[in-house]
């Protein structure tokens, strides 16, 4: 695709301030194609503008013709509780929601937002009001049209603390009840608690509870599974499985498979065996631990997505030896990150640089040097902190995928610099406890390891675990400069502005090191060779409307 310079000049003249800035950043080489695509999508830059820049074709043709009668079989984790758009927060449950429900926009595997039930969105100059234009002609599975009232009710329901909403922690300080307002039948304005340059992600598949459901929804979702998606419910049996059929009243291209079948599995091993025994065509997700049998089996394809999912190794900045940032830095410097990635993930992971800015985020400032293993410097730091003869630390963590192995590796790395770490590995419920300070091993332990799932933007990782008033601040890190920088980052509407702030944040966190971010692992799925067009996301969703099986 070639850029059309005459049209580009015309675009520059007619573009909004944000769009003009984005075009300028791209043309001067400050941002690449992928970053511009992603940023352009976030601020609601139209497909026509991106096409003019030669970044995307004007229209995207569909890859395959539609075979009529195929059934695609998927194996997923058993939903941990009743499937409900308000409360569901586990991988199996949210995958079920996404089979029938749709979001205002979709956060794709490349982290680029794409229109879904909204056709476009724009912020005001300050970035605290975002206006979304809704797609017309969208129907729910019961035939009723989707309108702005449904969107307003959906977001008010999720932002209401009385509703046991799983999205409440995401919306805290971002969107409150009453903040979503109808402009007309097909336009909705979100009035935010504070300016937020990444707000569209909160309305996307990134915020997995935000599927649009009818305004009159009263609960008991498993009876209807109502939504606007390309599939509608055929049958759901709790703890066993579900099946869906093509929705002929769908607003977009009709789903290629006539039917999809989901079987629920408990744990990795039974899922892997089901794929090996050809009882399913695709399984999601696949962890390297437990999935080794199929990772290199030529009969299967591994769908690999870079993600921001990671484990945070927090170190209490207000307790014992870890109070001294030199001790924290020394432990971080003892880690052989490349070895970790090779050993724990067979290389299927990005390196972390002790900040939430994963390499997959366009706003990550890659000019900040990568922290690498340096035993000599680590020992010097320890000695300077008065611990030349060693120090004892207790690390508490949870039994979850690779975390116990990670804990042992950290223990071994730290031993090399004279830090003796004793481990306490416990069940997830014991580790998280009540999840409030004073009643949670996670939040009260001297040092710990906690899993964080994927997000399309780093906002949640930057705030809750690291801000002075963060509800997940296990490191008890209190730094006014950091808080101010995060507020600037969140409010920044342009990519260059975000990157400038992210450089300062990354540098500050490398110096303070309240949390070690050792790696950001890939999200893996496995499928039989003949399956094409199936699209998992790093949020455990699985889009099957374009899937075909040969």
């Amino acid at each position: 695709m070639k850029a059309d310079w005459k049209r580009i000049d015309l675009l520059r003249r007619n573009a909004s301030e944000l769009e003009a800035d984005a075009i300028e950043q791209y043309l001067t080489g400050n941002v690449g194609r992928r970053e511009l695509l992603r940023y352009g999508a976030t601020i609601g830059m139209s497909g026509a503008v991106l096409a003019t820049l030669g970044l995307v074709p004007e229209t995207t043709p569909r890859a395959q013709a539609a075979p009529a009668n195929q059934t695609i079989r998927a194996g997923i984790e058993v939903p941990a509780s009743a499937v409900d758009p308000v409360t569901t927060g586990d991988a199996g449950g949210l995958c079920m929601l996404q089979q029938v429900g749709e979001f205002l926009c979709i956060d794709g595997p490349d982290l680029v937002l794409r229109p879904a039930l909204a056709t476009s969105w724009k912020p005001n100059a300050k970035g605290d009001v975002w206006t979304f234009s809704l797609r017309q002609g969208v129907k729910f599975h019961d035939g009723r049209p989707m309108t702005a009232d449904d969107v307003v009710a959906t977001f008010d329901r999720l932002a209401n603390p009385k509703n046991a909403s799983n999205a409440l922690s995401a919306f805290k300080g971002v969107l409150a009840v009453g903040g979503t307002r109808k402009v007309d039948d097909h336009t909705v304005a979100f009035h935010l608690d504070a300016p937020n340059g990444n707000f569209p992600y909160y309305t996307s598949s990134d915020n997995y509870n935000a599927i649009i459901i009818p305004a009159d929804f009263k609960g008991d979702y498993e009876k209807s599974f109502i939504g606007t998606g390309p599939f509608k419910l055929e049958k759901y049996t709790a703890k066993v499985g579900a099946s869906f059929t093509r929705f002929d009243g769908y607003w977009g291209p009709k789903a290629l498979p006539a039917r999809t079948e989901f079987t629920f599995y408990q744990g990795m091993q039974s899922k892997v065996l089901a794929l090996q025994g050809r009882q399913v065509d695709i399984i999601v997700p696949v962890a390297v631990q437990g999935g080794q049998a199929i990772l290199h089996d030529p009969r299967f394809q591994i769908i690999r997505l870079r993600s921001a999912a990671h484990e945070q190794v927090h170190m209490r900045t207000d307790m014992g030896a870890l109070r001294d940032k030199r001790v924290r830095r020394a432990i971080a410097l003892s880690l052989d990150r490349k070895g970790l990635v090779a050993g724990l993930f067979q290389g299927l992971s990005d390196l972390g640089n002790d900040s939430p800015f994963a390499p997959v985020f366009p706003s990550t400032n890659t000019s900040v040097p990568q922290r690498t293993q340096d035993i000599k410097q680590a020992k010097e730091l320890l000695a300077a902190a008065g611990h030349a003869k060693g120090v004892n630390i207790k690390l508490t963590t949870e039994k979850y995928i690779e975390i116990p192995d990670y804990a042992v590796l950290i223990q071994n790395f730290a031993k090399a610099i004279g830090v003796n770490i004793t481990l306490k590995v416990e069940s997830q419920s014991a580790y998280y406890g009540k999840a409030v300070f004073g009643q949670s091993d996670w939040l009260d332990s001297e040092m710990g390891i906690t899993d964080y799932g994927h997000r399309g933007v780093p906002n949640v990782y930057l705030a809750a675990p690291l801000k002075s008033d963060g509800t997940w601040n296990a490191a008890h890190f209190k730094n006014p400069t950091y808080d101010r920088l995060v507020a600037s980052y969140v409010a920044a509407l342009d990519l260059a502005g975000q990157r400038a702030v992210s450089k300062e944040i990354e540098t500050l966190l490398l110096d303070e090191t309240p949390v070690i971010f050792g790696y950001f692992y890939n999200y893996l799925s496995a499928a039989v060779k003949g399956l094409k067009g199936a699209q998992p996301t790093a949020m455990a969703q699985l889009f099957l409307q374009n899937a075909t099986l040969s």
Partner: protein
Amino acid sequence: MSGLRFVLRRVALSLVTLWLLSVIVFLGAQVLPGDVGRAILGPLADPRAVAALDHKLGVDRPLLVQYWDWSSHFVTGDMGRSLVYRQPVGPFLAAALANSLKLAAIAFLLVVPLGIFGGVVAAMNVGRALDRIITVTGLSMTVVPEFVSSIVLILIFGVWLEWLPVSASWREGAGAFTQFRHLLLPAVPLVLVLFGYIARMARAGTVEALDADYTRTAVMKGLPFRTVVWRHVLPNALLPTITVIATQMGYLIGGLVVVETVFHYQGIGSLIYNAAKAKDFPMLESGVLMIGVVYTIATLIADVLYSLLNPRIRFGGRE
């Protein structure tokens, strides 16, 4: 009448046992860390959302109120609603129990004759190579963890040879033969675990009975050896074996979490395990009591069989 009184006394004792069990499970569930709201919403959920859900589910009420609420409904046949799945517990338990009973029945039908036969053959050949082979093989198989034997069996017969399905779950409406095919592979690890145990008990009982005075008398009376074994040795030799088999019923019905997980089978063992993890009290309590009932019935049947085979203990010491 005495026989009826014996059974009634055992039933009354069983009811007290079940009530105690319900109290122990209830108190035990309170000791488990975490709460239902957080288990459903996830560890990172907002505390306000967790509190709202706990309130909605009624788990923020005093413990005694919760227990009374559940138990007063349970005695009327209402097992309550699952806190996690927000559906009545009854259908979940009925389906899971039916599945577990099917798997247990197949394993039982395979292992009991095999175990007894193996034990008797070993006893008849005490000290010889055949005895050693049966005893050592049985013991070795008993110590192999079920998840190891399960995965090996799946890889050989399910993945490599493709003779049997890798999953124990069948499609809706499947016939008896299809269900049997699905259950055959998961039944084998259970047979492997129990064979050695039952065979050893049967062997010990048979060796003892073969050495008993009444057996010697029967042989000296000139009875054919086969008749001696059937009429005099086996009825006495199998008494301890029957007790062992009965005590294994609880394991066969409710203790198959690993096998159910590996073979993707919706049995009552994994149902209870997951209910305990999620602190789904009505599901956990009803599930445990259901297994308690099955175990009690199995023990009662064993006691009755025992008393039929051994009239000396039939009427509680009034022989």
